[in-house]
């Protein structure tokens, strides 16, 4: 019996898969079918010659649920490797956001000033708008978006987390 009072923790799991049709649907279907959370999910091919894609899932659950998620992922036929970067870490996590802010006057100046403080880049501008590009931890992105809310924020696009372990060892 697994207690329901176990603490819930956030885990970043990296999955190497064969890049074949339906593999992402298989992973997402596993999460929805078994009632697991997905906080963010990114996927892209990382090696065209070996048709390998890397999926990074940020999920949360009790230690028992996280173990189940890893075991269930590992038994999917196209899955090559499953690594829990939260456990196997330390790891670095980065996310990219594109943030559109509209307005003029002081607010426009303040938005630009804050973007510099966050080391965001302006990648599009008009007389009445900016699009900022910002990379960092999800928390940093949250903070920036929160600050822009009072300064004319109209749209946000985020990629979800990509993560990799620190140090020389490879997956």
């Amino acid at each position, binding site marked *: *019996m697994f207690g329901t009072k176990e603490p819930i923790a956030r885990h970043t799991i990296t999955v190497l898969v064969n890049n074949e049709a339906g593999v992402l649907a298989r992973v997402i*279907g596993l999460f929805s079918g078994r009632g697991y959370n997905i906080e963010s999910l990114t996927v892209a091919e990382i090696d065209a010659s070996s048709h390998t894609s890397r999926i990074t899932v940020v999920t949360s659950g009790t230690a028992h649920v996280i173990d189940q998620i890893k*075991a269930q992922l590992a*038994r999917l036929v196209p899955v090559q490797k499953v690594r829990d970067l939260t456990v196997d870490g330390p790891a670095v996590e980065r996310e990219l956001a594109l943030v559109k802010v509209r307005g003029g006057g002081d607010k426009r100046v303040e938005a630009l000033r804050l973007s510099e403080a966050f080391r965001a880049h302006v990648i599009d501008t008009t007389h009445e708008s900016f699009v900022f590009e910002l990379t960092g931890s999800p928390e940093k992105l949250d903070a920036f978006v929160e600050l822009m809310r009072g300064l004319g924020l109209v749209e946000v696009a985020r990629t979800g987390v990509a993560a990799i372990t620190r140090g020389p060892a490879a997956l």
Partner: protein
Amino acid sequence: MADMDMTGAEMVIRALVDQGVEVLFGYPGGAVLPIYDALFNQDKLRHILVRHEQGAAHAAEGYARSSGKPGVLLVTSGPGATNTITGLTDALMDSIPLVCLTGQVATHLIGTDAFQECDTVGITRSCTKHNVLVKDVNDLAQALHEAFYVATHGRPGPVVVDIPKDVQFQIGRYVGPANIAPRSYRPQVKGDLGRIQQAAEMIRDAKRPVIYSGGGVINSGPAASQLLRDLARLTGFPVTSTLMGLGAFPASDSNWLGMLGMHGTYEANMVMHEADLILNIGARFDDRVTGRLDLFAPHAKKIHIDIDPSSINKTVRVDLGIVGDVGHVLEDLIKVWKAKQYRTQTKDLESWWAQIDQWRGRECLRYRASDTIIKPQYALQRLFELTRDRDAVITTEVGQHQMWAAQYLGFEKPNRWLTSGGLGTMGYGLPAAIGAQLAHPGKLVIDVAGEASILMNIQELSTAVQYRLPVKVFILNNQYMGMVRQWQELLHGGRYSESYSEALPDFVKLAEAYHAKGMRATKPQELDDMIIEMISSDQPVIFDCVVDKTENCFPMIPSGKGHHEMILGPEEDPVEISDEGRMMV
């Protein structure tokens, strides 16, 4: 000639033959016509024409479970594919190796809502172990061989290969099955030796042990069943088993406790409750087995041997998990045991067995006999007595009759008991019997059925007649969906909502309409002669055994209760079922 050019349809036939397939179950249609054309021109594969694609899937399951070989089916696109869903899900839940070939509309029509198009790989993704849509004829042979590899390696399961019609016509290069394994799928079959050593020590130290074995022992092959017997012999431990595992350990053995779980024996469940060591061999702590989880086996250390890592610690936390094929793990475990010259705690085991004998003394399978009406338990006892020297293969439908069959028929060998355990599929038994009869032409194959379940795939009687398969359908006819009625009696105040089988057909005439043999028994006195007549017939038979309408299946662990809270029979006071218990299925 290992590699050669041929059409996609010809590749399908060639790949099946190269995989050693002898029988395939199927139903033709527009999107598989090229494959049926290729079938027409060969004599290596035997095609069995079912009457419904669900029947094909269950027949393939019956073939697989009784032979240990993968079952193969071939169906058309759209409704042909969707009709297999129940069978695929059943095979996934019970770990049965199936390869299901589905036709698909031509590649340029995919996504256009073409006639008889459905998203087969999308629909079957969650009810298969793996599936694949083959869009290039040059990938087809590899996909087919991989399908067999995946279906039969690791924890077995169903695999769908979806083949568009244009791919079946195209010419491509065939490759043989040698050296084909998906690069990312390599299940672990050997268990970790350190853990096996630990298991041996836990077995040595146990005072109140039990072996809880499951379908994994049967899936591992006959050698694993033998090793289970060897282990029981070496240790003197009592053995119980899940519904799926019946036959892996002989029912006539003195260490046998009977099945455990919701309708298991009193002694098996009490042993689980009081045990200090549970050795789970290829079972998965299913909810029918554990009952209420926080009351499950409170005193026991648990060892779990399973080939599927996700089974370990899924619902029950275990003290020692060993990932591997049970056959390999048992072999190593016995080697370690012998090499270290371990001995069990003989004195403790003696008092454990004395306790077990007391529980056995409750005679939990006793029922009130009758000489005017056929009790379902009596019917099965007579069926068992009159067939026990025939090494029969038994299939079932789902419900009370299934549980009674599990309780009253003793199985001595693996692969003789085919039942829908995980999914609980009514309509499984008749097509599964057809599959088993094809795998074992000379054997006596009996589907123990209920009058409601049998009507769910009765059309397959036509298949049995066409291929002269002398399967016997033994219907325990109580005019109710008995298990539904039993639950309504216990949990819903006796309000028998829609569980009465009104307007039943005359099963004797029904059999005759299909050109099979029909029989009916209504009195206990006529049962023996009629059962003998049934099993000596060389025809398919429907035996309408009219039984007590109100008999309930006992013993029973009510919903939301623990193993030690069984109801032994109708004379016991009605139990209070909590609201939480009522929520459980």
